[in-house]
């Protein structure tokens, strides 16, 4: 029996043995990893890296670090695009500005859209320009690729994508179950060079707590070679030790911890603040005209010296107070 083959290119090495050699060298010591976002991005995100970002859509995303990647004009990145919405939109801004090609290769599951909010005009221009190489996947199969890496394996099987052009443009393969003869999709492990994940709480060593859905982030933190955590709040190590069941990402996966209150803004942070739909609409609107968009970026992305200044531009604490009320449904009788 011959199986169809896929023609997409694999942008990262799935070898479990190669990954083991790397993970052997990763430090296991409890050391203070607190630093600024700009220092973390400078030290841990390199030109040519394979980058993956946590959260889902604009929910629990590390906005500050994504801004910083564009501000530091990182180039030639590969990217894991699993329901990447506002984060993808920001990264695409880097394909317009500065050295001009932040994104070079994208593993696509969901890009250029912002879910119910519509499509990003600029991200579409970038992706329709032919300058960014794509390989197709799905939300779950990208999650499975990260799970394979988190497990220390070179591949995992799955039962989707079969029979479609999504498969044909992927870098997956078709295999047969050695026990049942069932046809399966084989997915190559994805070991990102660097992952950035926003969480609710972390201690200075990188032990993290997340409330609400975890999406693919627990596997992502384990799969990536280097991990930057941005968190709403630093908490004492004592608090982590008080309830170890709540630790979802352990310190030994983490390389940098950055305290960024409201760090998922303008996205949603469960239990903290809802997404700023007006600001997200403004962003989409500004993208329509490229000249106008450059001015917008100068003001909102390149202008602010840090994330707090960006928050200030967007309405500051008063706006954040409103988003908090909205998140907690404070004005709906609750």
């Amino acid at each position, binding site marked *: 029996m011959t199986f169809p083959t896929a023609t997409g290119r694999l942008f990262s090495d799935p070898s479990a043995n190669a990954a083991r050699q790397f993970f052997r060298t990763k430090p296991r010591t409890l050391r203070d990893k607190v630093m600024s976002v700009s220092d973390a991005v400078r030290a841990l995100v390199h030109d040519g890296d394979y980058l993956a970002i946590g959260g889902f859509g604009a*929910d629990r995303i590390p906005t500050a670090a994504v801004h910083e990647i564009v501000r530091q004009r990182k180039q030639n990145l590969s990217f894991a695009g699993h329901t990447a919405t506002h984060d993808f939109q920001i990264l695409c801004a880097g394909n317009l500005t500065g050295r001009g090609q932040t994104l070079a290769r994208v593993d696509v599951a969901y890009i250029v859209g912002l879910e*119910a909010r519509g499509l990003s005009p600029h991200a*579409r221009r970038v992706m329709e320009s032919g300058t960014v190489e794509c390989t197709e996947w*799905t*939300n779950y199969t990208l999650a499975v690729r990260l799970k394979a890496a988190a497990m220390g394996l070179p591949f995992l099987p799955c039962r989707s994508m079969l029979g479609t052009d999504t498969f044909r443009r992927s870098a997956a393969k078709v295999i047969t179950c050695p026990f049942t003869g069932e*046809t399966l*999709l084989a997915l190559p492990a994805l070991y990102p060079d660097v992952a950035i994940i926003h969480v609710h709480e972390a201690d200075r060593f990188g032990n993290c707590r997340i409330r609400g*859905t975890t*999406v693919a982030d627990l596997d992502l933190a384990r799969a990536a070679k280097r991990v930057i955590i941005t968190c709403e709040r630093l908490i004492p190590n004592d608090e982590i030790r008080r309830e170890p069941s709540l630790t979802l990402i352990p310190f030994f996966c983490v390389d940098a911890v950055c305290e960024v209150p409201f760090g998922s803004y303008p996205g949603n942070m469960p239990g903290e603040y809802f997404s700023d739909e007006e600001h997200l609409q403004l962003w989409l609107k500004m993208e329509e005209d490229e000249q106008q968009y450059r001015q917008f970026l100068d003001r909102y992305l390149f202008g602010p010296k840090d994330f707090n200044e960006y928050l200030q531009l967007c309405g500051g604490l008063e706006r954040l107070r409103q988003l908090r009320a909205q998140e907690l449904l404070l004005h709906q009788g*609750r």
Partner: protein
Amino acid sequence: MAVRYNAMELMICAAARLLEDGRSVTVGTGVPCAAAMLAQRTTAPNLLIFFEAGGVAPLLPTMPISVGDSRTFHRGLMATSMADVMEACQRGMMDYAFLGGAQIDAYGNLNSTMIGQDYAKPKVRFPGSGGANDLASFCWRVIVVTNHDRRRFVEKVDFITTPGYLTGPGAREAAGLPAGCGPYRVITDLAVMGFDEATKRIKVLSLHPGVDRQQVEERTGFQLLWANPLDETPPPTDEALWILRQEVDPHRYLIGRC
């Protein structure tokens, strides 16, 4: 007779009626979510709702904007990972999934990836599969909700993002997809359609009140099959409309679009 409802309201109500009580559904934002919320408040109080980012059985205070926002697990029974939800689907525990797409063909294959002939330089780039391909591969019954027009209902989609019946009977199983699932209904602003048992091609089951065959044919880019007898889609009940307007979509985000 005065028009009691618009096309969007009819679509949501028709979709809601398809969901059997006591079964499970994975929904996205927009129409699918509204249909599931309406079903829960009318004919399917025990409908178990999942969101692919990890939300399980929320008490939805408002419609989510994102499949992963905090509404999707507001007072839910579990807030878990995407893999946990997708694996429940892969295990065979998900009865329904709601999908849409930029193009759909006669076998229910969906395109949400690109328009054009050159994959490397698409004429139009769409988001891609998201979780659609996974859900269409795993869930027992896929329901597609979409507007009915000739650009969308095409003989051949530019890109099969998400599997319908692929090239026809047996093609899903031959490709290795789990047996016994596939597209179940396609609901548009004109009609409710199913799939012919023998050919796995789209078959019109009922026309919405006031719609005729010619209208549907004019807005479809491929040869349609027709149920015989051809039913009329039941109009929304007053109760369903009231709940939809008062509780499900009070801000008319969806139903105001028509």
